């Protein structure tokens, strides 16, 4: 089976080259067919890979440079169930986005298709790479494709600003990552992740490894839009075309987090596994991210910007799951990745439909305009409920697994904070849906700031296709929590992901792995606490949404007092998200320095 992993990269990259090369030479239907076929083939192969990766690690050494006597000589793709599962999700979301953009992108579709395929190949390569430097190369390749896709429609200043901020912030992330690689290579003399982990397991780690870890993990967290590195995300997602947002917000941002988990469990668990310092920092960053982005989401009126903050909020919850450093937390992050990718993609698709229908995407301007669009409305509310985590809907199963992990580690307070985050982001989306699709509430709300100028989308779209794609994405995302056996498989995958000694042995060929026991095919059991928290989060989200819609009907004393106490912090929050790239870079530097300082203080003493 070791021939499959390279194909997941080769098929999209070669098709991208063909599509770009044959531009204006072949009729459009053939090009479109080729693009969708390439992406579908990649997805099918990813499923095949997942099937095989469950029973053994699929390792491909390029050029046949197998390890000799347990020493890695070549460059490898090492695919376990987590990596293969990510490739599946990436394939599905990109395929949906490509089908959506067949008519949505209009004339511009050809270079666009090539860039999307490039991103697909790069993301799959990133997910499967077992080599530190290759992680960097795939990271940069998908980043370059993403910058170009973000600034694709440069007829207005917004997309330029979004793409510039995105490109500069993420490039700095890439450079920090490169410096981290150089330091780790200096210390260990190898670039293979398994070999680095084995090398670091012997002898004291020293300051250089702490610096390298800070640079590498912060590099990934910039990509993953973790607070305070998240500032670029809202600018970029607000302006990118809807199918691009679906790919960026659905899978590409989350990939940064999987990178964090991958590096920790293959490399840094060896020297720092005895302490909980690394996990605690990630946990706290996750909690702050979830709460801050949830609040910011509630303060938006631009649909895609609101969704962008909702993405960042869920990123925070996933990072907290990874930061628990146990199998339940990691399994929760995987399950959330799956449900969140599909639901977010679906919501961005709905936002695109609204944009095409009404030539704007502002919650207040759209007040009541989309009444009677039943299918998009259902998809929007379904996606929103799925993202809040109502029991047995959407991200609930992942959320519940993270709850289990936190409770087992004696940190039950984590649950409340994370659920609050998803309730806040969900409330914003519910409020927007109620205004746009039901015409509820006031058409004015000074709390939400000023409207952004938006370019009308004058496109000849095949609307039923767009609606169908959105509905499929949301329906699949909602169903994730009730797929029998999925929870247990995620947990098994997480166990294997965390088993550093086993991973090293499987990659470097010391021994084969024992085949797994057969996994039960039932819906994963969740605790009563999770049910209660999920239910309360839903109620809270609905209540907050209603408050947002009908603020004027609150008693005047309450309203005035709330406005007085909330206005200053809201003003500060808004001014932090200034849209100026210099500020973002300052935050990146400060954030990296603080994270590194905390780790140095906790791990070096």
């Amino acid at each position, binding site marked *: 089976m070791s021939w499959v992993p390279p194909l997941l990269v080769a098929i999209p990259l070669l098709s991208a080259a063909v599509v770009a090369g044959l531009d204006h030479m072949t009729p459009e239907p053939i090009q479109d067919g080729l693009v969708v076929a390439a992406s579908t083939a990649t997805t099918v192969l990813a499923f095949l890979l997942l099937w095989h990766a469950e029973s053994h690690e699929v390792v491909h050494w390029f050029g046949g440079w197998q390890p000799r006597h347990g020493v890695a000589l070549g460059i490898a793709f090492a695919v376990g169930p987590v990596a293969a599962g990510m490739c599946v999700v990436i394939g599905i979301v990109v395929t949906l986005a490509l089908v959506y953009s067949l008519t949505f992108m209009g004339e511009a579709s050809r270079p666009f298709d090539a860039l999307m395929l490039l991103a697909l190949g790069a993301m799959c390569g990133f997910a499967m790479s077992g080599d530190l430097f290759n992680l960097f190369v795939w990271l940069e390749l998908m980043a*370059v494709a993403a*910058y170009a896709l973000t600034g694709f429609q440069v007829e207005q*200043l917004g997309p330029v600003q979004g793409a510039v901020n995105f490109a500069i912030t993420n490039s*700095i992330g890439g450079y920090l990552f490169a410096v981290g690689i150089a330091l780790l*290579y200096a210390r260990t003399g190898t670039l293979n992740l398994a070999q680095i982990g084995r090398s670091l397991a012997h002898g004291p780690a020293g300051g250089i490894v702490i610096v390298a870890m800070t640079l590498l993990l912060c590099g990934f967290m910039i990509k993953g839009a973790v607070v305070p590195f998240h500032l670029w995300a809202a600018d970029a997602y607000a302006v990118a075309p809807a199918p691009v947002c679906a790919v960026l917000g659905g899978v590409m941002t989350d990939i940064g987090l999987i990178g964090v988990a991958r590096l920790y469990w293959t490399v840094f668990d060896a020297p720092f596994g005895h302490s909980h310092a690394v996990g605690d920092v990630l946990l706290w960053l996750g909690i702050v991210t979830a709460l801050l982005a949830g609040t910011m989401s509630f303060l938006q009126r631009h649909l895609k910007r609101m969704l962008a903050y909702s993405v960042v909020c869920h990123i925070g919850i996933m990072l907290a799951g990874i930061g628990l450093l146990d199998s339940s937390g990691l399994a929760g992050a995987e399950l959330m990745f799956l449900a969140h990718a599909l639901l977010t993609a679906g919501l961005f698709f709905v936002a695109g439909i609204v944009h095409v229908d009404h030539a704007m995407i502002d919650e207040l301007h759209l007040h009541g305009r989309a009444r009677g669009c039943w299918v998009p409305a259902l998809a929007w509310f379904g996606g929103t409920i799925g993202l809040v985590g109502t029991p047995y809907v959407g991200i609930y199963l992942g959320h519940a697994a993270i709850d289990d992990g936190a409770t087992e580690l004696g940190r039950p307070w984590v649950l409340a904070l994370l659920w609050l985050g998803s309730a806040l982001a969900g409330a914003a989306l519910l409020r927007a849906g109620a205004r746009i699709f039901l015409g509820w509430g006031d058409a004015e709300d000074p709390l939400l700031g000023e409207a952004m100028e938006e370019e009308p989308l004058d496109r000849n779209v095949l609307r039923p296709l767009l609606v169908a794609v959105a509905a499929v994405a949301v329906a699949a995302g909602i169903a994730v929590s009730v797929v029998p056996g999925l929870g247990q498989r995620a947990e098994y995958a997480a166990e294997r992901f965390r088993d550093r000694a086993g991973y090293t042995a499987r990659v470097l060929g010391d021994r084969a792995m024992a085949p797994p026991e057969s996994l039960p095919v039932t819906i994963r059991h969740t605790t009563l606490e999770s049910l209660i928290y999920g239910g309360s989060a839903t109620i809270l989200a609905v209540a907050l949404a209603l408050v947002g819609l009908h603020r004027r009907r609150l008693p005047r004393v309450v309203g005035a007092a709330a406005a007085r106490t909330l206005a200053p912090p809201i003003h500060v929050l808004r001014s932090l998200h*200034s849209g*100026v790239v*210099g500020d973002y*870079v300052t935050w990146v*530097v400060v954030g990296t320095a603080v994270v590194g300082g905390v780790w140095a203080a906790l791990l070096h003493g």
Partner: protein
Amino acid sequence: MSYLPYAVAAWICLVGLAGVATSRNLIHLAICLMVTQSSSYILLLSVGYVEHGKAPIFKGTKLGTTAVDPVVQALTLTDIVVSVAVIALILALALDAHRLSGTVDPDGIADISG
């Protein structure tokens, strides 16, 4: 091996970042970004340098000849290729920014915020 190359790399990285953070011109900013990245080249090359090492071309040399590490040079080259793509894109965006708003000041193109 002295610590000088490492100090130089750290210095260049920080100077570049300071330039990016305070820049008022996107083209100047792109150059600062390149400066930041060149710190990683210096770091990589100093990691792989071996005192009295020869170029890593082994055809016709005796077994056991000391050579510098060939891997870091490959990494540096890849790094340069990647940065060219990124810089080209940022410069293209700077052109667009100028076309649309008449300025290349990052403050001037900050259309969206909050």
